[in-house]
């Protein structure tokens, strides 16, 4: 029988399994609290994909996740466990919002690229430190990038509450950006914006780069086998640093696009954990472009469904958080679908 089919099947099953588990655990939680799981899931599906507007909402929700997933993937495939995209997202969002407000006089064709470039650059700069520490001193980048997330969140929260607080505004937010700095809407009245196209294009570009470009191959080789890479003359520390900074650039850009495309300003609590969800997306997508795209759509569907589901049922929106968390927990678990399992207890 299908010796060739089996690996494909087991790979597909391995990717689908976390979602199956999430649906199952979600059903248990729903049933235990007196809700009817099937009905809830039907409502969720129709809220995520039922009609043009709902699909647009799902794609809008998937937009930041495409890029945070990409940010995680470019680091992971080189063997760098960067969990710092969340911090880059905050900083990038704030810089883009500030530039979008300050450059109101500029023509839109210039403001948007400048603001997005600023967002990406601050994200890249933010991760130079952990990149150097990892590349030169072997300091564990998981802890440094995790800590930098909290520093970035506190720092931006301090800036919008203190030095950058808008006069006469009680909520901790920057001033709204100029109309010319807003990314154009694609399907008014929905909130789907140009940022989705930009993010999708970058994921496609990554697909080609990772498979066809020499640099893409080299950086993957470093992730697969650093010693071999060193032996064939690849500068491994430089690759670590480059991929860390690239990951930061993408994370910062993600925040910038979110600010210019959807929020139109920077507010404290700017991200509900997009950077962390991006980690799950990269792992579920096995760092491949198509995998990142599919996983981002699924997570986007979950959050867009959750946002409106509350209007039509008494199911708390938190069911979505539970399911997203379960998917993360089992994202890279080996659930016994033919993968090598060292059975030892």
């Amino acid at each position: 029988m299908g010796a060739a089919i089996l690996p494909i099947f087991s790979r597909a099953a391995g990717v689908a399994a976390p979602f199956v588990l999430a649906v199952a655990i979600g059903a248990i939680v729903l049933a235990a609290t007196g809700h009817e799981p099937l009905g809830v899931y039907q409502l969720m599906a129709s809220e995520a994909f039922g009609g043009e507007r709902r699909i647009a909402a799902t794609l809008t929700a998937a937009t930041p996740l495409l890029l945070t997933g990409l940010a995680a993937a470019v680091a992971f495939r080189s063997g760098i466990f960067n969990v710092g995209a969340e911090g880059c997202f905050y900083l990038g969002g704030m810089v883009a919002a500030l530039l979008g407000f300050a450059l109101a006089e500029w023509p839109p064709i210039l403001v948007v690229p400048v603001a997005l470039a600023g967002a990406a650059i601050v994200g890249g700069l933010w991760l130079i430190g952990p990149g150097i520490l990892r590349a030169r001193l072997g300091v564990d980048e998981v802890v440094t990038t995790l800590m930098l997330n909290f520093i970035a969140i506190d720092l931006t929260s301090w800036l919008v509450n203190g030095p950058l607080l808008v006069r006469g505004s009680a909520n901790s937010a920057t001033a709204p950006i100029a109309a010319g700095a807003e990314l154009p809407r694609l399907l008014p009245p929905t909130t789907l914006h140009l940022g989705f196209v930009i993010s999708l294009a970058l994921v496609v570009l990554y697909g080609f780069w990772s498979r066809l470009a020499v640099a893409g191959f080299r950086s993957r080789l470093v992730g697969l086998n650093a010693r071999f890479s060193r032996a064939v003359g690849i500068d491994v520390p430089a690759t670590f640093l480059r991929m860390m900074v690239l990951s930061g650039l993408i994370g910062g850009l993600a925040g910038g696009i979110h600010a210019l495309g959807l929020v139109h300003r920077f507010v404290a609590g700017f991200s509900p954990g997009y950077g962390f969800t991006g980690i799950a997306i990269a792992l579920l997508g096995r760092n491949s472009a198509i995998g990142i795209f599919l996983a981002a759509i699924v997570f986007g569907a979950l959050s867009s469904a959750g946002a409106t589901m509350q209007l039509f049922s008494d199911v708390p929106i938190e069911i979505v958080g539970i399911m997203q968390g379960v998917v993360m927990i089992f994202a890279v678990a080996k659930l016994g679908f033919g993968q090598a399992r060292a059975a030892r207890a």
Partner: protein
Amino acid sequence: MIDPFIHAALLMTTPILLAAIGGLVNRVGGLVNIGLESMMLAGALVAVAVSAATGSALVALAAAVLVGALIGLAMSLVVTRLQANEIIVGLGFGVAVAGLVRFILKSAYGVSGTFNPPGVAMLPRLAIPYLSDIPVLGAIVSGQDGLTWFAWAMVPATAFFLQRTRAGLRLRATGAAEATVRAVGLSPLNIRDASTAFAGAMAGLAGAHLSIGVVGLFNEGIIGGRGFIALAAFYFGRNAPWRTALGALLFGLFDAAQIRLQGHGAPAELVQMLPYVIVIVVLTGLGLADRGRPSRRSL
């Protein structure tokens, strides 16, 4: 003037110290526990619910320990038996438990955000006669709750356990030389699971301290990143119990200072981020100190 501050600093040290000791033991056993925050959150909620239902703070603590340990065990099993990455699983538990807690608040208690049932029994504060009148010393030793005493007693107990007992040796071997543990016929995975369950129990206590020891109600933001501060504390302490306790005390001081500063319009956020900055500085210093040595990698 100084006495209330010392008292507040010690009070805020307790939850960080409890969770940090748990995380330390867990890390010695070979698992970096990013999920402490989620176990603290569950412990805090359960402590309030059980305390209100039974009127007993002791039963509430037991329930918080149990729930924390169960979550810890569940997390550990996914890591050890399904070979999932501990960082992702820890972050995933953070998302899932936060969602579950809010879901339960809404569907079981019909509240969102804050849960303040009537009749919550608080942890009693133990006033010590005579000593309580002495400045500074009185603020340190008198008027603390039992969990604070327990947390500080756990510091030498953990040091003794790790260095002087057979089980401590086995735990250290599990983290440092897994193959050796297997070779002598023990199960490193079982030992690691036990250490994560212990970390969960300690984190559950830490959460209970915040809810029924400090404020007397539950709020979804009650932990406020202290699980990650605990992580910072045991990284600061490099797996040594006393150094970790010093880190926890330092961060408890920051926490108390931060709460005070909030009333004065001073930048509390900047104080809040100090623990994280310190950990990066410490890791950088350590990296500079053992420059050239090849590092152990894992992904």
